[in-house]
């Protein structure tokens, strides 16, 4: 099937060699395999910058006109100051010819791109400053947001949060996938909010295919992890397969433009720590050089960047009026090797989702008392927000409710591989509205990037 823009304009592309040679540039990116071995994304003619930006490393797109057509048909312009992670950066020269593209990897507080990920012709895939490119690319930079997928490809998609629209990068809370489901015993086929500890729970995932090419021979790999805001790949544990329910589960087909429920695995979590973190990876293989794969994994172990990966880091607490709930989770660095970054922060946001009244005035929220202590030493206080405070970090208010209080624990210096306890205490007010839900989002942030999160949902009973 030809690859086309959303308007049906064909894209000419090819593969001009499969060899990869090493690049000594420290900016060179790498790919982490399921077995945690790493492969450098070095110099190759298999794909170029345009193939990286629009065709998950599958092909080399020959013509800048095709790229202009993709941007015209599938993207919308993004104004300066409104740039987000995952947006497309386009470089043009003084002749107004498109010379290069990439994806925005980091932004600053003012909404400008500060780090780009792109592939430089037949050379390697790099992380670089926006202006730090070869002079032949020109200095005319513009930003776009890809709104529609291409035709003629597949795009396996596990939603990262209820508000996930399938775009390149999911904003916080990207650890609240509604597509990872579990059925605690007795197994009635109906998804449950929380697992039963010490017993086999059925875990499955709902997988969509956003595009018009079926994905065949698909497997899902199911993982559990200790409850943590920030998870390195090494902290993901493959759920052991059981007779009749292997993990990875599959193979199966996800038809074009369809959603399916993948086969389930049986998961027996322990109660200490209360395992609530589940991850699912839908993939055809683990080969970043397979151009025939209709939807290769591009960012393995990277939940917000990879559509085919979902994470459910949600702890649901049935909260009776006047009760106190204590939960212990962790925070840890989410990298195998720490990039050069400033000290981290712990950002805590309390959001409220009222039960909508059928008649009368909208219900006002009553703020619960929240205690968060980092590593047994540093306590965090939340400050109430006046009105539905505009939070520049979350412009679309995707926090599963209206933010009502927030706090930040700054200057977190975390050591590689160490887990730091986060003690959370929620006191449910006696006059809280029954049926409403409080969401406590605990987010780990480095620079401007949310690098991990955990959400406690207290449902008032």
């Amino acid at each position: 099937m030809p690859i086309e823009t959303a308007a049906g304009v064909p894209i000419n592309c090819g593969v001009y060699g499969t060899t990869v040679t090493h690049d000594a540039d420290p900016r060179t990116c790498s790919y982490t395999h399921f077995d945690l071995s790493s492969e450098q994304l070095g110099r190759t003619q298999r794909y170029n910058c345009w193939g990286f930006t629009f065709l998950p490393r599958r092909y080399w797109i020959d013509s800048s006109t095709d790229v202009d057509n993709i941007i015209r048909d599938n993207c919308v312009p993004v104004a300066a100051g409104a740039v987000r992670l995952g947006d497309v950066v386009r470089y043009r020269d003084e002749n107004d010819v498109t010379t290069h593209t990439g994806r925005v990897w980091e932004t600053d507080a003012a909404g400008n791109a500060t780090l780009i990920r792109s592939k430089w012709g037949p050379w390697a895939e790099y992380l670089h400053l926006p202006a730090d490119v070869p002079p032949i690319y020109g200095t005319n930079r513009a930003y776009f947001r890809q709104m529609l997928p291409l035709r003629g490809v597949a795009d396996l998609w596990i939603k990262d949060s209820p508000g996930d629209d399938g775009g390149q990068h999911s904003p916080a809370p990207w650890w609240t996938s509604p597509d990872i489901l579990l059925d605690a015993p007795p197994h009635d086929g109906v998804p449950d909010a929380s697992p039963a500890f010490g017993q086999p729970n059925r875990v499955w995932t709902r997988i969509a295919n956003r595009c018009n090419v079926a994905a065949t021979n698909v497997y899902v790999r199911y993982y559990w992890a200790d409850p943590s805001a920030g998870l390195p790949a090494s902290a993901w544990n493959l759920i052991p397969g059981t007779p009749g329910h292997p993990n990875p589960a599959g193979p199966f087909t996800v038809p074009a433009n369809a959603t399916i429920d993948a086969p389930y695995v049986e998961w027996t979590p322990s109660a200490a720590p209360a395992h609530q973190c589940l991850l699912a990876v839908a993939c055809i293989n683990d080969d970043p050089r397979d151009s025939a794969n209709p939807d290769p994994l591009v960012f393995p172990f990277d939940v917000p960047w990879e559509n085919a990966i979902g994470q459910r880091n949600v702890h649901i607490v049935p909260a009776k009026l006047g009760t106190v709930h204590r939960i212990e989770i962790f925070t840890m660095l989410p990298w195998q090797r720490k990039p050069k970054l400033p000290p981290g922060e712990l950002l805590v946001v309390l959001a409220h989702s009222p039960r909508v009244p059928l008649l009368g005035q909208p219900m006002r929220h009553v703020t619960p008392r929240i205690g968060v202590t980092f590593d047994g030493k540093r306590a965090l206080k939340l400050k109430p927000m006046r009105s539905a405070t505009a939070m520049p970090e979350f412009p679309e208010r995707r926090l599963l409710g209206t933010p009502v209080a927030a706090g930040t624990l700054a200057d977190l210096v975390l050591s590689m591989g160490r887990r730091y306890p986060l003690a959370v205490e929620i006191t449910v007010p006696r006059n809280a509205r029954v049926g409403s839900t409080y969401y406590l989002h605990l987010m780990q942030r480095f620079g401007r990037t949310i690098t991990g999160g955990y959400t406690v949902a207290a449902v008032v009973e």
Partner: protein
Amino acid sequence: MPKFQKHLQRLRKPEAIRDAVFASSPYVLRRAFSTDPTVQQLVQAGPDVVADIEKELADGGEQLPDITLACLAYVLWQIAPDRGPALLAPLLRRMLDEHGPFFVHFATHLLRQQARLPVRPLEMVYRRDEMTEALRRFG
């Protein structure tokens, strides 16, 4: 020893051509060639270079890196486009089924220009049917 041996030897390493290895398209590669001192010295030397390019193509042929071949086609196009079909058409014919992302477009551009077929002067990117159409004009 060919007069421009050193220049041509240098072109055998694409990374020695300024910015050429960062090119995502024939257009960007052409811009790289237009700013590289070695390439420009060859262009300024004019038709004297043709014999050396002919020998380089005969010796190396499709074994040369794709960017190097594209560079030789570029120089020919600049200094002696009328010699292009004789020197490039056989190579283009052999490489139609397996080629890199650059040379076939530079060669096709030159051939189509010589055959007075429609060209894409800015982008210089051609489909396979346009390549074969150009080759048919030259036997």
